[in-house]
C-alpha cells in the first residue's frame, strides 16, 4: 500500500501529462468539428510542455534566477535552483504553439468561407461535388 502510494506520488506528473496528451489527441483525431480539433491541438501541445517542464523540477529548489548574498556574491549551488534548460525549451515551444494556433485559425476562417461549414464530413461532401 505504501509502495503504491509512493509510486503514485512520485509519478503523478507524468501520468497527468500523458492523460492530457491523449485527451488532446482524441480531440484532434476523432472530433468532427475543426474548431474542436484546434482546441484538441492546444491541449495536446500543452500536455507535452507540461511533461517537459516537470523534468526541470527539483525538490527544495527555487526559481532559476541567482540569489545574491548580502555582499553581492551570487550563490552558485546547482541543487538550489530548478533546472533552467527545460524552461528555455518550453518558452520556445509555447511561442511555436501560438504561431501554429494563429495559422490554424486563419485557415479555419477561410474554410468556412469556401465550404460554408467547419464540420469535417460536410466539407468532404462539399469537396466531392
Amino acid at each position, binding site marked *: 500500500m505504501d509502495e503504491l502510494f509512493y509510486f503514485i506520488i512520485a509519478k503523478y506528473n507524468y501520468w497527468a501529462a500523458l492523460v492530457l496528451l491523449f485527451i488532446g489527441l482524441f480531440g484532434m483525431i476523432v472530433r468532427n468539428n475543426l474548431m474542436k480539433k484546434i482546441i484538441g491541438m492546444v491541449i495536446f501541445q500543452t500536455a507535452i510542455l507540461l511533461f517537459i517542464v516537470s523534468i526541470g523540477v527539483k525538490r527544495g529548489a*527555487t*526559481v532559476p*534566477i541567482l540569489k545574491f548574498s548580502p555582499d553581492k556574491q551570487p550563490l552558485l549551488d546547482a541543487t538550489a535552483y530548478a533546472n533552467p534548460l527545460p524552461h528555455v525549451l518550453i518558452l520556445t515551444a509555447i511561442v511555436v504553439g501560438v504561431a501554429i494556433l494563429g495559422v490554424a485559425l486563419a485557415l479555419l476562417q*477561410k474554410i*468556412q*468561407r*469556401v*465550404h*460554408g461549414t467547419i464540420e469535417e464530413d460536410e466539407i468532404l461532401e462539399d469537396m466531392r461535388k
Partner: protein
Amino acid sequence: MNLEPFFIVMVVAILFLMLCNLYRVVAGPTVIDRMLGVNVIGIKTTVLIVLIGIIDGRVEMFIDITLAYALLNFITTLAAARFYQRISQPAPSQPEESLVAPSAGPEVKEAKAPEMESDAGRKEIP
C-alpha cells in the same frame, strides 16, 4: 512566528474554492456565465501566485506575473463582451447562419481566378 503553514493552508483552501468555481465554467449555462467563472478563476490565480511566491521566499520574482495578470486579465472578458455586443444587434433581415455563408461565392471565384488567367497556351489549340 512562522507563517508558512498558514499560507499553505490558504493556498489549498483557495484551490478548493477554485474547484467550486469551475462548476460555473463547466455548467454554464451561458457563455457569459462561463466567462464570469474564468474571470474569477483568473483573480484567484493572481492571489495564488503571490502566495506561492511568499512560500518560496522570493516573492519579488513572482510579482511580475501577477502584475501582468492584473493588467491583462480583463482583455479576454472585454473581448467576449464586445463579441456579444456585436452579434446582439438585430441582424439585417437574415438569420445569423446565412450571414456567414454568402461570402463563399465570391471567395471561390477569387480562388479560381488564377486558373482562368493561365490559359495562354490553351487558345492556340485549334
